[in-house]
């Protein structure tokens, strides 16, 4: 779950990570007031869940409150599309207004999970303010990593050794030392998968500030962070994906082809998508019902897939393990009854209770072709769509 910059900065502030003075605004009048109180150059930043806002026009520097009003009027209520966001247009409902800082240097600091080393990792670079993946590719030696023992936390000696390599001066190093410890505290206590401060700025008078802040929380941990759950901004998400999420389903809209895919398991999802391409078309979306879906969840899944107008045919590929195929069949039949659409389906059912499931589906009024396996499913799709 991603947080907005203003939410992330609020958390940073609570944990004594220094940030420039700033406030969030929902209207251009609020925005104007804030800039007045800043009394100088300010930065207005669109609060959207997309990286690369700057290049896309989502970050504007204003000289005074009049200017701020104008910029806020333009931004608020519009949408933003960045090179990182794909086709998605993100609505701008809030802007963050921040005092402009006199920056002498931009650094990069992030905490994330290193899945290969199986532990948290602190990533630091003197090349802040840029695309860090580009830095990693072109000048890998400019990226320093500290692996953190998750039971011990970040050892002070490791941070000290990192900082001593960089010659940032005693004053700046000491501030970064505390910032790293405080960020780890946030990372650990809030189950973050990512905290990224880019840039971590050094001002003209050697103060270190988090100029931008990106925080992502592990979705699987949300059950123990009820306060964080409330921070989630639903407007930033594709509505079908949101609906899926609320039913604990993983749905992804893909603007590629005509096949709606219902699967269980990520591996099978990927294999299924590969098969739609073999069938001469491509997936319109895919929905992973997960390991142990109930009848209701499957019904919801059916509704989400069929609400996608790109879908001309549905490929259901379920392998019962912890999921029971008969339960899935009932869910699909209920979905069909309650929406009454007539999108044809190709169905591959195997594993736990798949025979019962087939019987149930055969008795229903659904337009179904059964296939034994994925290659024959591909043939069925070709036939149904008239692809030669």
């Amino acid at each position, binding site marked *: 779950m991603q947080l907005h910059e203003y939410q992330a900065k609020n958390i940073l502030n609570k944990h004594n990570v220094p940030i420039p003075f700033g406030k969030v605004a929902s209207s251009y009048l609020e925005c104007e007031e804030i800039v007045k109180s800043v009394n100088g150059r300010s930065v207005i930043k669109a609060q959207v869940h997309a990286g690369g806002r700057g290049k896309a026009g989502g970050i504007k520097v204003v000289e005074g409150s009049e200017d701020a009003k104008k910029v806020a009027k333009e931004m608020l209520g519009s949408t933003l599309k960045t090179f990182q966001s794909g086709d998605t247009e993100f609505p701008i409902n809030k802007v963050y207004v921040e005092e402009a800082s006199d920056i002498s240097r931009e650094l990069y600091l992030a905490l994330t999970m290193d899945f290969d080393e199986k532990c948290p990792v602190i990533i630091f670079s003197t090349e802040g303010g840029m695309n860090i993946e580009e830095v990693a590719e072109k000048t890998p030696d400019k990226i320093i990593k500290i692996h953190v023992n998750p039971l011990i936390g970040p050892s002070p000696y490791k941070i000290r050794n990192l900082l001593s390599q960089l010659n940032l001066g005693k004053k700046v190093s000491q501030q970064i030392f505390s910032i790293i410890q405080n960020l780890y505290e946030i990372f650990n206590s809030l*189950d973050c998968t990512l905290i990224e401060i880019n840039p971590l700025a050094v001002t003209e008078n050697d103060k270190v500030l988090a100029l931008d802040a990106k925080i992502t929380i592990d979705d699987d941990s949300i059950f123990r962070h009820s306060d964080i759950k409330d921070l989630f901004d639903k407007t930033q998400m594709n509505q079908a994906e949101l609906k899926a999420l609320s039913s604990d389903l993983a749905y992804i809209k893909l603007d590629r082809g005509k096949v709606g895919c219902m699967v269980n398991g990520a591996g099978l999802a990927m294999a299924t998508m590969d098969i739609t391409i073999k069938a001469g078309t491509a997936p319109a979306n895919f929905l992973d019902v997960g390991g142990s879906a109930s009848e209701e969840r499957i019904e919801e899944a059916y509704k989400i897939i069929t609400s996608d107008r790109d879908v001309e045919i549905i490929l259901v590929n379920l392998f019962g393990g*912890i999921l029971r195929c008969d339960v899935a069949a009932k869910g699909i039949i209920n979905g069909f009854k309650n929406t009454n659409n007539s999108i044809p389906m190709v169905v591959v059912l195997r594993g736990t209770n798949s025979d019962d499931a087939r019987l149930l589906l055969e008795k229903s009024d659904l337009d179904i072709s059964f296939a034994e396996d994925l290659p024959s499913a591909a043939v069925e799709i070709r036939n149904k769509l008239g692809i030669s």
Partner: protein
Amino acid sequence: MSLLDKDSNKVLIQGLGRDGSFQAERCIEFGTKIVSGVHPTKAGKKFKQNIPIFGSVNEAVNETSPDIGLIFVPAPFAADAIIEQIDANISVIVCVTEGIPIADMVKVNEYLKGKKTRLIGPNCPGYLIPEKKLKVGIIPGSIVKPGNVGVVSRSGTLTYEAIVQLTKLGIGQSACVGIGGDPINGTSFVDVIDMFEEDENTEAIVMIGEIGGIKEQEAAERIKNSVSKPVVASIVGQTAPEGRRMGHAGAVITGKSALASEKINSLKDAGVVIADSPTEIGQKVKELLKIK
């Protein structure tokens, strides 16, 4: 499979809710010796008339001496259940639960270091040794057949896919191991491939990988250096959209090494036969075993 095939193969099941109970029955049907259950509110009762349910793993271990633990506990409590089983010296733990917080598993993994317990999963279908009638997890017992091909996979459902193909072609399995799709898990491809290499009953190995991470490359390295048996591999996710979450975080393209093409190249370089699609795995194994 000496590491997974214990002498007594007595299994304890922790978490006997809807899914746990259903799957426990399937395990018993397959022939697995389930000796005890653990459930916080069902202690003192019996499962299926004759299997005692205890309130704690320690009690269950003292009374029924299981070697293997199978966990269906809900995600918020699953890491604690794993630690409870580690502390009770269970040799092999299979954790089926999906959705365990990453931070929990990172800590469990660190806690496991230096301990004798082997953890498979979480978010995995577990394993099955057809010959021994041992099923620890949720791989459907109906699709397997005793034989000499070892199957290992990150994806649960694709494990079944591969097994079905093999069985249809009359090729049986020495063991089928689903290591799970989570980014932090207890047992890796390398671990299972080592077991297959040592196992007398295994003649060939099937490995099903995914995009994301570097675990397939590590496996390739190991195969190249110390595996004598033939390996067929398939990597799924070639058409997956870049940078988007595909149901589990492990399948995100995080860098070049995470790409399917990179993984396939490493495996080819290690002499592995590549099945372009997982639907071709059975056929590839058949060809390979004929050639042999």
